[in-house]
């Protein structure tokens, strides 16, 4: 059960009442405006109370919200998109969507992790958990982009890489490892956005970038909170505690220098005003691409090297605790 979805139910009830009153008001002589205004104020208060400040655990569920915009919701707002399929060897993994696109009047290679928006699509897209064939598609598209001089734009949204038998048999480790290799070497700008859940190495495979954006309520984590609790304490029920400890929110990660920009979400989450959020993200991506396009391939590679070289480097920055324990 998703606590955010649960919480929305009360809010939706108030919303319905406001709408009923408005309809009634239009059809009868008595002026109900003050009542409506009061209810609207209550709605605002309730919304602020419920969503004004989210704990890490709540953000995880916001990131997993079934109505949260998925990669294709972003891609569909691009000026043009021509999907490219397949790893050229074995399979086309529908958990990865990629291809040529136009953004702000310039061609880019867009690559996203795609979960389903309903049960049927989730089956087709394996809940956004990418298999080795999917990562090999990512690598192939990144290499093509690098050859052709097209900036790479990624949208990250996955619980993690697919942990199934056949993924192990098809060398999931190698597939992710060679994705990372391709991204560090790419001769073009890379802009990555975490739009939902960024789960471990399976997310990072699309995440090495010159500019990393996170949606305000997205999370990006070394492991899922559930997984972390299981690994450290053999107790998945401690996931909420793990969520707090892992420092997986956008604000935390910006402080660590792991992400570069946070795109704000409306109160209640991105799915409350999806088109606005998508437009905001695409505008941020566009700006980043534009800025990075001024750099030579060599400068991009050099800067990218330095950036990742610096994270957790010893002696080059303060070593004391950055996070705070609530």
């Amino acid at each position, binding site marked *: 059960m998703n606590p955010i979805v649960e919480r929305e139910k009360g809010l939706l009830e108030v919303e319905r009442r406001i709408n009923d009153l408005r309809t009634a008001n239009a059809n009868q002589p008595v002026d109900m405006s003050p009542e409506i205004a009061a209810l609207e104020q209550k709605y605002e208060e309730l919304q602020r109370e419920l969503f004004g400040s989210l704990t890490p655990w709540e953000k995880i569920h916001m990131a997993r919200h079934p109505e949260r915009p998925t990669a294709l919701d972003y891609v569909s707002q691009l000026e043009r998109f021509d999907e490219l399929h397949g790893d050229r060897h074995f399979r086309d993994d529908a958990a990865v969507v990629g291809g040529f696109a136009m953004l702000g009047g310039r061609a880019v290679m867009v690559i996203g992790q795609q979960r389903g928006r309903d049960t049927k699509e989730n089956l087709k897209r394996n809940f956004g958990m990418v298999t080795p064939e999917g990562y090999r598609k990512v690598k192939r598209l990144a290499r093509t982009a690098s050859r052709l001089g097209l900036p790479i734009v990624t949208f990250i949204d996955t619980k993690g*890489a697919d*942990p*199934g*038998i056949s*993924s*192990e*048999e*098809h*060398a*999931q*480790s*190698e597939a*992710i*490892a*060679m994705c*990372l*290799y391709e991204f*560090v*070497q790419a001769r073009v700008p890379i802009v990555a956005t975490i739009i939902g859940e960024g789960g*471990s*190495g399976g997310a*990072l*495979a699309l*995440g*090495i970038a010159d500019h990393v954006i996170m949606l305000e309520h997205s999370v*990006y*984590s*070394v*492991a899922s909170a559930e*997984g*972390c609790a299981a*690994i*450290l*304490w053999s107790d998945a029920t401690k996931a909420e*505690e*793990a969520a707090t*400890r*892992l*420092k*997986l929110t956008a604000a935390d*990660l910006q402080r*660590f220098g*792991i992400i570069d920009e946070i795109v704000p979400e409306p109160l209640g989450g991105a799915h409350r005003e999806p088109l606005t959020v998508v437009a905001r993200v695409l505008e941020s991506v566009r700006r980043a691409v534009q800025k990075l396009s001024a750099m030579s391939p060599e400068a991009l590679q050099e800067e*990218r*090297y330095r950036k*990742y*070289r610096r*994270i*957790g*480097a*010893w*002696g080059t920055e303060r*070593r*004391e*605790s*950055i*996070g*705070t*324990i609530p």
Partner: protein
Amino acid sequence: MPTPDWLRIRRSKDGDGRDAAVWSKCPSCGELLYRRDLAANGHVCTRCGYAFRMGAYDRISAIVDGDFTEIGAEVQAGDPLGWVDKRTYPVKLNADREKSGLGEAVVCGFGQIGGHDAALGVMDFHFRGGTMGTVVGERIALLLEAARRRKVPCVLFTASGGARMEEGMLALMQMAKTTAAVARFMEDGNFFVVVLTDPTTGGVSASFAFQADVIVAEAKAMIGFAGRRVIEQTIRQKLPDQFQTAEFLLEKGHIDMVVERHALKATLTRLLQYAADGKKVHA
């Protein structure tokens, strides 16, 4: 062969830790083995042939010809997340330092292997399950950068439970950092060999472990991306014993060769010889 100085110093640090117990029980056959005999046999059970998870310095001593110059030892973990659960992260680290005699989960440096100058990094499962945090990532990056400057090949022994939870995303980012260092090293035409040892999983297997020119696995090592338990929970059935073993991966085409522990040094020596010859042709 007398114990070299660098190793004697390290070994003495182990003294109050692991060496206190002079007997080890074989996890495979249950035999009680005298520590000295076990060490003399390359930490392989003299009864059933089971290869014990090996300490980093023991491994280095088994692989290098003589001297080993460690680098990156000064790089030590901080506590970037201010991690606390039952214990704080610094307390956990100190406990593992005590127990293993290691500063961190990887030891890096330079030595000769069969007469060939080489960079050598060895991960140790006894320190935080060989997990990769900022120190492991930093030390490996430093090693690869130094190897690149010196134009010598690099051999990495992996043993890892994946990324280190207590350093959060900073740990995950070490996959990016090590990959960046590997790519620079390899794009210059340098030779990179990885030896996968038991166990190698997660963030290590999905980064530098599978980017090498040649991927060797020690016989019977467990190697995979997802842990066995995670997969079993996902598919709700038991996996076959053979699944994710070195031998399984060889059959599936993921790795170049499976080598018994006692043959590793000779194998590495031959591999380094081939690469040294190649450099001559290019030069």
